[in-house]
């Protein structure tokens, strides 16, 4: 297989314009002859469905939740970036492009990132017109804030609920198209297979989660917007239904998986407090603007924070990174917290937490100021932990948050299967090895509103389609396979629950393939995962039947895929013998403990091709060519 990124020729700023001109167009009257399947209703899926329907295509949209409005994008808090330069602080499309490429540790494709920065401004226009209530200045114009360590204020936000508001905007556009009959909405459906006919993606097989029926849906193209796979770690800040199933099934049908080992760990989450813990809650990064991170100097110090004198505290971020202090990037902050805990200096019942202390800020600015800035976050913290962060320091710990990897796509967002497009967090993305704050929302909406409507037309207009009905043998075979898998899961009737397996898988992944990775650890993890997977198919207990609403069965299918996918993630981590962004291999670090890239050997995107059950996948490499930016080493000292 040859990976062709299809990057248009010409100077960077003109590539997208030129490409749009070169793409074939579908005659308006013909658009209604095409059926497009969109899986997922997060920012990417909802925006794509609505935009495609507005153009006149027939769209069928699927999601797992009972309503498209509940997709995981709803949970995003902080904001969305755009290069509007409203604050007049020197921003530009070029700068947003540059920051994103650099933030991604030079592992993203220049042309895609530049396009992302270009369309970012339209996104804001579109969302405002939809009624998204972004924060405003007194004069009534849009407000911006700086976010995630950026030196500019380019983040648009709607309180701490930006993702919710953007998603509700896209959802409302989607609902409008449902009302007009151009979108048929299929909620409570889980895509369990992709149907490929004559090398083209022509449909999906999905389970109706209420009736258990295995349904067939045919179309001329399939657009996957199914989000990230952070839940392979079991505990993450992702919603419980987030899964890898849709993309992994597509991988098994021939779509290459790009950079699966690029995962992001967020430093400020509420720590784990028991084995029963089901998910982790993110506390906005903005807290690090005023909170000071510290641990006791002596390992095993069990005293209450208030009883530990100043001299016996280690403000380790301030100590190690005097210029950035508590505001070092996500990966650096996360790794340092882990390092302290590994040295036995962690705090709390589990020893897996560090303090985030606001007492100095409260002393300096007064409680009222802090309350105004972070009141809702403090409240949320208290709700969950039962502790008052005004009185005692917060405890935080890093948690899995975002996955930069995903299905490999070309400049058109098409995977290695013709007619299979992948948008949003589900693709291997524009974020390289590390995503900057507030840019996932931007990417999801860019893909859905402003990229797919053009690129899919080029494909449809330029391809020949055989007539396909849903009784085609490819559908029948797929349904049979899906059915057999369901039957198999139910038939094991073992002695361990699905969650129990998932939890164990998560622990293995977190311990060996989390913030810092070693070759030995990865090798051990791979073996453990193989064992665990074997045990899963011998010993899992899935109650109930496949013919009705069965949440255990849903989970079991997802965990079964995670079990296989985890191994792919580890293979990728083992293959990438360098450190970059979210992938940190202990063997490759600078003297300052920063990720040390190996641009000579690893300046590429890894794309893994499935070659059959029980066989190792094959690695393809898309070389990344940087013509416009200079590759540098990050430093935050």
């Amino acid at each position, binding site marked *: 297989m040859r990976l062709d990124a299809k990057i248009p020729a010409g100077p960077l700023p003109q590539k997208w314009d030129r490409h749009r001109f070169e793409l074939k167009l579908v005659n308006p009257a013909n658009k209604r002859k095409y059926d497009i399947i969109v899986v997922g209703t997060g920012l990417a899926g909802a925006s794509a469905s609505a935009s495609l329907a507005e153009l006149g295509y027939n769209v069928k949209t699927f999601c797992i*939740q*009972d*309503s*498209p*409005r*509940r997709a*995981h994008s*709803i*949970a995003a808090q902080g904001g969305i970036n755009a290069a*509007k330069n409203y604050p007049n602080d020197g921003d530009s499309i070029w700068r947003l492009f540059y920051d994103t490429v650099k933030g991604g540790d030079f592992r993203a494709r220049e042309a895609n990132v530049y396009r992302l920065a270009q369309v970012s401004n339209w996104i804001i*226009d*579109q969302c*405002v*017109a*939809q*009624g998204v*209530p972004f924060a*405003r200045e007194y004069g*009534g*114009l*849009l407000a911006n804030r700086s976010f995630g360590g950026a030196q500019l204020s380019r983040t648009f936000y*709607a*309180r701490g*609920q930006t993702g*919710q508001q953007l998603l*509700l905007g896209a959802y*409302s*556009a989607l*609902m*409008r198209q449902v*009302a007009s009959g151009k979108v048929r*909405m299929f*909620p409570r459906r889980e895509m369990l297979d992709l149907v490929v006919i004559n090398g083209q993606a022509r449909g999906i097989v999905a389970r109706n989660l*209420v009736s258990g029926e295995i349904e067939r849906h045919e179309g001329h193209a399939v657009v996957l917007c199914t989000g990230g796979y952070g839940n392979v770690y079991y505990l993450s800040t992702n*919603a*419980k*239904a987030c899964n890898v199933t849709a993309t992994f099934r597509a991988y098994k049908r021939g779509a290459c998986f790009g950079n699966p080992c690029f995962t992001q760990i967020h430093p400020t989450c509420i720590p784990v*407090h*028991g084995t*029963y*813990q*089901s*998910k982790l*809650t993110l506390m906005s990064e903005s807290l690090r603007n005023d909170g000071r991170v510290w641990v006791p100097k002596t390992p095993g110090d069990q005293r209450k924070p208030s009883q530990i004198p100043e001299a016996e505290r280690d403000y380790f971020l301030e100590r190690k990174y005097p210029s950035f202090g508590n505001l070092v990037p996500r990966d650096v902050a996360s790794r340092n917290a882990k390092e302290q805990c590994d040295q036995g200096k962690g705090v709390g*019942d589990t020893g897996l937490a560090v303090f985030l202390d606001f007492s100095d800020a409260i002393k300096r600015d007064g409680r009222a100021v802090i309350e105004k800035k972070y009141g809702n976050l403090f409240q*949320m913290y208290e*709700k*969950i*932990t*039962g502790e008052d962060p005004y009185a005692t320091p917060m405890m935080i710990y890093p948690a899995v948050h975002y996955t930069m990897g995903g299905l490999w796509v070309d400049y058109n967002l098409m995977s290695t299967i013709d007619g299979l497009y992948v948008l949003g967090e589900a693709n291997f993305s524009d974020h390289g090895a590390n995503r900057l704050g507030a840019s996932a929302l931007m990417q999801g909406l860019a893909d859905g*509103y*402003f990229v797919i*409507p053009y690129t899919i037309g080029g494909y449809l207009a330029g391809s020949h389609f055989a007539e396909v009905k849903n009784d085609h043998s490819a559908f029948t075979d797929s349904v049979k396979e899906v059915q057999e898998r369901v039957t198999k899961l139910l038939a094991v009737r073992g002695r361990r*629950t699905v*969650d*129990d397996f998932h939890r164990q898988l998560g622990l293995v992944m977190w311990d060996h393939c989390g913030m810092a990775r070693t070759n030995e650890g990865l090798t051990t993890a791979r073996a453990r995962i193989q064992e665990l997977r074997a045990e899963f198919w011998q010993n899992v*207990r899935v*109650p*109930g039947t496949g013919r009705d*609403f069965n949440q255990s069965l849903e989970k079991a299918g997802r965990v079964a895929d995670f079990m296989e996918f985890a191994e792919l993630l580890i293979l990728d981590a083992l293959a990438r013998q360098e450190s970059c962004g979210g992938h940190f291999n202990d063997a490759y670090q600078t003297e300052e403990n920063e990720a040390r890239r190996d641009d000579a050997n690893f300046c590429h995107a890894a794309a893994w091709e499935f070659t059959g059950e029980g066989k190792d996948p094959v690695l393809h490499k898309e070389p990344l060519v940087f013509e416009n930016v200079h590759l540098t080493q990050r430093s935050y000292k």
Partner: protein
Amino acid sequence: MSKTIHLTLKIWRQNGPGDKGRFETHPAKNISTDMSFLEMLDVVNEQLTLEDKEPIAFEHDCREGICGTCGTMVNGRAHGQLKGTTLCQLHMRHFADGDTLVIEPFRARAYPVIKDLVVDRSALDRVIQAGGYISVNTGNAPEANTLPVPQDRAERAMDAAACIGCGACVASCPNASAMLFVSAKVSQLALLPHGRPEAARRALSMVRAMDACGFGNCSNHRECEKTCPKEISIVNIARLNREYFKAAFISQEN
């Protein structure tokens, strides 16, 4: 500090829409007070699974109070007794050792039960389809700062927009009315200049759609506002009423 409590759950079990349903009693033993309510149900479900019984079906997704998926009645209160809190954010430290909890699905004619505690709230989507949007095609939007929005108006729009669509307002309302939910969307869009062109049509058709879904009428009991996990105010209902009257009696919209 965390401790361990034991509870008795009286839970509604119903195999499917056709089933009559019944209450079942299950013990919830050794529940850490640091658990969330849903984690407590997870623990009970793990136990049921190992005992070869069917686990209790309940809905959830984000588990951080924003997606609006979770929600059941706990001792007669939608999302439990804590103010401004979704069920997933309710922690067990708010219960005492030995408590008996009655757990029922949200009930309304417009919310048929799917299984156990899971109900079908698609009626809320149908109401939005009737007009809970601004008709702007992708690419049609003018520059974002073209229309200024006074900050306090934007804030009030945001107050209304904070609705997570959980449907607890309906569940808690003695009349199973969806007015708070509908009014939140109508208000958000009515407050913003971008939403004004369609305001009349929106108010009329959303109210019509709401009635067609079989929700009850608002008697101003204000249970919704007290229950709402996002503390959406009934000021929005008054605004919906005003928008409706303007639309019905003054505008040319039918």
